[in-house]
């Protein structure tokens, strides 16, 4: 079977089908996995407390979360059990908290706790004194948003899955089996799962599937603050959401930084996700309003991503039994949490039309390198060769291992996501030249254009 799109959902689908016994081909347009929506998110593992009641999204977020908690130790994936505080900064927002708490309890999140402003500030003293009231959501956690899908896919590859990057699907037809024409050549498959994210509607149309949605990219800009900020933000700080977005979040990252974002900006462009100076400044100001100690904190990184939103709020999941296809569309902002749930759901839908698979006799053990600061890193163990990136303490051994891995980096972003190299406060001031030498021509856009003259 073929999975189109190597974002977090596609990687999880590849794993689930490989575990079920399918021979999987994962087809990706970009130079590396996680090239689209999945490269930029807030890395929160959601409980679903604020998901639409009774929705497929709620069910799959909760299933995905449960499975992540079950498998993460065996895959060597981190979990920061920070909990979240939904913070009301005005009396009007405070009035909405009871509704949010009731919805959360209806959604099966039993441990929600209403707090006064003072109680919330006792849990997180860094919060501004302007806080009126809050709800504690202990089950909201932080994960490594790039190592998790890498681990899913690595497990799939260990079970025989093949990954094809630079392989944009140009068209496809079903005549008892699928023939997918890609930029790399034709892939023949018994069935197809469309997990094409920002191009979900485009791929549906190219495959001749009845598509009832249009992707409306929603840009989110983020600022990553220096590791010195981490001590001030032990929890995920959520705002009272609006109709459009969950709003600007302040949260720690698995890598020891603090994230402020995202924005929610509608745009037509599916390719460009630009950052804008004024927006970044506004995010910094918002972060300092929420946690005053963040004022003046050095900026480590800035980024922007596009969420594959559609004209409706809910997931656009559809089975096409007559064509042996499943579309996982419109996974707009909870994809990281729901990916494993979506994968299991896709397998269930697939079982409705087949073909059936024979599960493998044994499941190989897969462990991805840990990049989270809460667990032992490679630099803490001897014989790592050298520390190449001093800000993030990425070692030569880690970089070589990434290139030698079953799913090697295809571009500089992919190398950074796999090793942390260049992701720190100096943003590659010290290590980019060394990385240029180490990577050579193994990245789609090499870090060097050639030798110096003379």
């Amino acid at each position, binding site marked *: 079977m073929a999975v189109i799109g190597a974002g977090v959902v596609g990687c999880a689908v590849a794993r689930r089908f490989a575990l079920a016994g399918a021979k999987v081909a994962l087809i990706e347009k970009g130079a590396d996995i996680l090239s689209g929506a999945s490269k930029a998110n807030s890395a929160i593992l959601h409980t679903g407390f604020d998901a639409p009641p009774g929705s497929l999204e709620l069910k799959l977020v909760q299933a995905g979360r449960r499975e992540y908690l079950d498998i993460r130790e065996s895959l060597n994936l981190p979990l920061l059990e920070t909990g979240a505080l939904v913070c009301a900064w005005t009396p009007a927002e405070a009035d909405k908290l009871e509704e949010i708490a009731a919805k959360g309890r209806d959604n099966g999140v039993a441990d929600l706790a209403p707090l006064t402003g003072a109680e919330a500030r006792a849990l997180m003293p860094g919060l501004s004194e302007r806080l009126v009231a809050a709800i504690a959501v202990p089950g909201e956690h932080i994960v490594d948003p790039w190592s998790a899908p890498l681990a899913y896919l690595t497990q799939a590859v260990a079970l025989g899955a093949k990954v094809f990057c630079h392989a944009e699907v140009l068209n496809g037809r079903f005549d008892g089996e699928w023939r997918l024409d890609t930029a790399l050549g034709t892939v023949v498959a018994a069935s197809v799962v469309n997990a094409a994210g920002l191009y979900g509607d485009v791929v549906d149309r190219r495959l001749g599937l009845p598509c009832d949605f249009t992707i409306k990219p929603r840009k989110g800009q983020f600022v990553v603050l220096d590791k010195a900020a981490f001590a001030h933000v032990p929890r995920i700080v959520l705002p009272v959401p609006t109709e459009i977005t969950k709003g600007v979040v302040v949260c720690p990252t698995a890598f020891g930084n603090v994230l402020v974002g995202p924005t929610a900006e509608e745009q037509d462009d599916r390719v460009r996700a630009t950052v804008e100076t004024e927006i970044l400044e506004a995010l910094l100001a918002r972060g300092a309003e929420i946690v005053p100690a963040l004022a003046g904190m050095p900026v480590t990184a*800035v980024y922007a991503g596009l969420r594959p939103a559609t004209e409706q709020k809910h997931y656009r999941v559809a089975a096409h039994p007559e064509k042996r296809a499943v579309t996982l569309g419109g996974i707009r902002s909870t994809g990281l949490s729901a990916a494993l749930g979506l994968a299991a759901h896709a397998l269930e839908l697939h079982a409705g039309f087949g073909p059936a698979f024979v599960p493998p006799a044994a499941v190989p053990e897969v462990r991805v390198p840990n990049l989270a600061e809460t667990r032992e890193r490679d630099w803490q163990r001897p014989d790592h060769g050298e520390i190449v990136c001093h800000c993030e*303490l990425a070692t030569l051994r880690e970089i070589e291992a990434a290139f030698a891995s079953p799913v090697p980096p295809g571009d500089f972003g992919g190398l950074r996501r796999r090793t942390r190299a260049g992701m720190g*406060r100096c943003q*590659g*001031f010290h290590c980019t030249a*060394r990385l240029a030498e180490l990577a050579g021509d193994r990245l789609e856009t090499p870090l*060097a254009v*050639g030798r110096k003259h*003379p």
Partner: protein
Amino acid sequence: MIAARDADVIVVGGGPAGVAAALELRRRGVDRVVILDREPSLGGATRHCMHSPFGMREFGRVYFGGAYGRRLQREAEARGVEIRTGHSVVSLGADGALTVATHRGVETLTARRVVLATGARETPRSARLLPGDRPVGVVTTGTLQAYVAFHGLMPFRRPLIVGSELVSLSALATCLLHGARPVAMIEAAPHTLARAPLDWFPTVAGVPFHTATDIADIRGAGRVEAVEIRRDGRTRPLVCDGVLLTGRFTPESALCLQSPLGVDAGSGGAAVDQDGRTADPNVFAAGNLLRGVESGGWSFREGRAVGAAVADDLAADRDPGAAVPVTYDPPIKLAVPSLLRRGGLPAPAFREFQLRMLRRARGRLSLEIDGRAVWSRHGLWMPERRILVPMPPSAPAAGRVHFRFEEDT
């Protein structure tokens, strides 16, 4: 500090300031002096500066780039300084203990005194909040020079150069000498930040130079493809394959930032008193960690002075007392030292205050001690230029030391 000690003094960073401090400590008879440096050899930022002459004042001859670092290394070895390269200091504990990463794994080192001399770096694209895509090819001068000096590589052939500090000239020279042809140089301020020859050199070299111009957009999916530059609200595209960000140096102050020391709000670097002592009386700092940025020679002399103070401090072994902050009016950006201690050494490391301005400003700059002006100058003060004000002997004992700035209207 804790009992078992690995050295009398550990110097973190083997650039000009750190090596000079270590040499002076040994010259004054301090027994066990260790330099930790994360790179494979000493020299710090001078290792990749192939163009700049170093060593005139300290060694009486001119060295280029790596040769200066090798001279530092020979001097340190000859003086019996223990040099540990490939040692990356990861954290500075509340008790002054250093967590160090080496190829062997993690070690903890302690000493009677620590000297931080971790230097400075240029502000990267992210912290400048520059707009646009985030393609490959947006680098700083230091990164470009590391490409050239250490690996013989080039990150681009047709970059746009941003900035007009002294280092910007060096960035331009590195490009021209090694096979890159900049498409233009731009400076956001209405004037160049460095003195001549930035006024005329780029133009003579055939590189258009624009002041009051900034970046409105960076475009590129993989590598930089174009930059929109903006002047007077009007933008125009420049086709290029890279962006070379020069200057806007910031102290490499991660160790301070993540320790109880914190950083100075003005400089972003270590806050020190007149002896080079930080908030922790056993931890000292010198060189460009105190402020971005001075020359290698300046950092060397500063390191030597702080090294002398550390030696005196070890010999005196007394509590220097609480630190009083030096205050200043905007648009003064920073003051070094920014702390004063009444119980400091008889011969302080700093005899002058170093000031910098945030922007160009004309007006009267005065030093007030306990409310009384003891020094005053009127003039046009430029950003990124060194301003030196003599430190009166009475300053450390004063209750309030303040730099006043009265801008002309």
